[in-house]
């Protein structure tokens, strides 16, 4: 059952991230589908990939995007 909830979170989280007007918020919300994907990989019997995805998807990617937003413009015009 929990897999289906995770898939739902992945899809809704990705759509939500793209709907934000505040780009910093969008960067942080990008971490939610990343983390949900990591849990999903665990349920799909791939624990080592889940570890990598947890670090890359929920920490590194949002931080990169947040850095880029910090160096450029915060609000989408």
């Amino acid at each position, binding site marked *: 059952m929990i897999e289906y909830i995770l898939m739902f979170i992945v899809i809704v989280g990705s759509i939500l991230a793209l709907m934000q007007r505040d780009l910093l918020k*969008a960067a942080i919300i990008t971490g939610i*589908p990343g983390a949900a994907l990591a849990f999903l990989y665990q349920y799909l019997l791939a624990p080592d990939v889940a570890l990598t995805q947890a670090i890359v*998807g929920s920490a590194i990617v949002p931080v990169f995007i947040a850095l880029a937003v910090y160096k450029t413009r915060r609000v989408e015009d």
Partner: protein
Amino acid sequence: MIIDTQLASLLTAGALIVIGIFAAVFLDNLIKKVIGLAFIGDGANLFLIAMGYKPGGIVYIYLPGMARDFFAQNAAYPLPFALVLTSIVIGASTMAVMLGIIMVLYKKRGSLKASEILGE
């Protein structure tokens, strides 16, 4: 359950790819485009993972004391998982390069609009 886990994850992967392509093609903000591109990569990775998944199987780690035949018949297929590890890192590094270019372009042009910067 109406649809099994494997099919559901394949569909999720498809949805992620469609969302990503939509964002990359139709959204005007460059950072949003990059977020969309990251989702396309995630979708492709999830697709590969779902290929290796075995319904009702076990994790592909051979623990001491496990019967060999039981392991051989029930373990998930580990090859796609090994590929995804590489793919995740490639995706993250490509994204980092793109964000770097965007930062330089913002310094030059003072805008994040794709229609202004890429439209020539």
